[in-house]
């Protein structure tokens, strides 16, 4: 009986020791390995999002702006808009892709995408507030939808129509098409490390916990 108690005690001590080290995250509960990894995504944290998603809005208000500046230096942050969600997902993707490239051309780094300088952020927040706070549904059609974002960044429809045919925009949109296979698993927002590991949003309990997990997955 005594030896049994001792064994139990020892195993508890071992578990406590292991839990204290960095092996606290488990595959299947904290993250899943993507069956179809995102191409050319080594060294990135990808955020799959949609304007038509309340939790994306919540994350972009409270979590991501605080998370991105604290990301490890060798990890690049990349937003991917999901075109298959929402009535105007396709138009949203086109506009966000145009604005992201414009931000990059203006010299903004991935860490600046949550600053006031970012056009992407301006348009995104305009859509979030219109859709989620003001319950705007743009029943008048795609042009009405585009107007909300274009007005927020001061771009004309003609400028946008020209910019969206840029081969770089097209290439980015093609990359973003991979969002669907990620979003299918647990919805959006979805965070993917190195294009391979999808974080289970449900089990995120704090920004620091999320950073720890990202750091661990990065080296995998």
């Amino acid at each position, binding site marked *: 009986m005594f030896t049994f108690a001792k064994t139990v005690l020892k195993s508890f001590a071992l578990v406590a020791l292991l839990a204290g080290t960095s092996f606290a995250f488990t595959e299947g509960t904290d993250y899943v390995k993507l069956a179809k990894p995102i191409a050319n995504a080594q060294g990135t944290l990808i955020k799959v999002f*949609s304007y*038509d*998603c*309340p*939790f*994306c809005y*919540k*994350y972009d208000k*409270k*979590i991501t702006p605080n998370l991105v500046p604290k990301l490890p230096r060798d990890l690049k942050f990349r937003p991917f808009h*999901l075109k*298959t*969600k929402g009535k105007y997902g396709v138009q949203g993707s086109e506009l966000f892709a145009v604005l992201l490239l414009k931000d990059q051309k203006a010299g903004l780094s991935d860490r600046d995408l949550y600053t006031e300088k970012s056009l992407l952020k301006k348009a995104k927040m305009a859509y979030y507030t219109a859709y*989620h706070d003001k*319950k705007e*549904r743009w*029943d*008048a059609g795609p042009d009405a939808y585009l107007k909300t974002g274009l007005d927020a960044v001061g771009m004309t429809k003609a400028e946008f129509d020209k910019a969206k045919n840029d081969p770089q925009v097209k290439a980015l949109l093609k990359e973003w098409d991979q969002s*669907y296979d990620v*979003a*299918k698993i*647990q*919805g*959006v*927002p*979805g965070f993917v490390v190195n294009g391979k590991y999808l974080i*289970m*949003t*449900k*089990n*995120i*309990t*704090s920004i620091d916990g999320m950073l720890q997990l990202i750091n661990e997955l990065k080296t995998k």
Partner: protein
Amino acid sequence: MKLSEMIGNVRSNPIGTISQWQDKRFLWIFMAVLSLFMVILAHSVFQIWLYMRPCEQCVYIRIAFFAMAFGGIVAALKPSNPGFKIVGYLFAIWGSFKGVLYSIKLNKIHHAAHSDDLFGVQGCSPEPTFPFHLPLDKWSPEWFKPTGDCGYDNPIIPDGAQLSSLQKAITDFYSEGWYLWPPAHFMNMAQCTVITFGVILLFLVVAAACWIVTLVRKRQTAAQTASASCHGKLA
């Protein structure tokens, strides 16, 4: 049967009485009608008439109610037939159990959506995954395709829709989302369905247990009488 008589029966022989109840049609039909009423209310009144769009969990809750309705109808065909009754119990218990789980999840999402505490839930899936991978949203999009946002069930009135004064009044009443009593935000949709599913599940489990106990007792008495008559013969 008078109410006083019924209460007397439950007191003197609770297991036997409940077992008798589930041998009759009434409760099975009651459950089926209640389940169908809930789904039709959600679809035809709240979704179609009042423009409150169903979310992912909401369409799962519908399938749970449909399973209970189906189970109730099958059992009600002939409640004394064990085969029908077992099918009835399986569908109804499965439906109400899943219903409780879906409702708890929806309640968590609802809480996260309406507060700053957004950890612990996952986002909204762009497409539903139904039990057994049934493509219900393809078969019947109007009933099973989620078009709403998780955690938000306030009416969204399309531009140009002509509302009657009654529609206008009710959509205004629910403008901050569905609550049993909207002005006080008292009991959201998920909390109401979890109670409905939970009560029915509890009742089903108790009724099934009473049925099984009664069957076992009957067997034992039959065996005792048989062995008693055997002894009688030997003597």
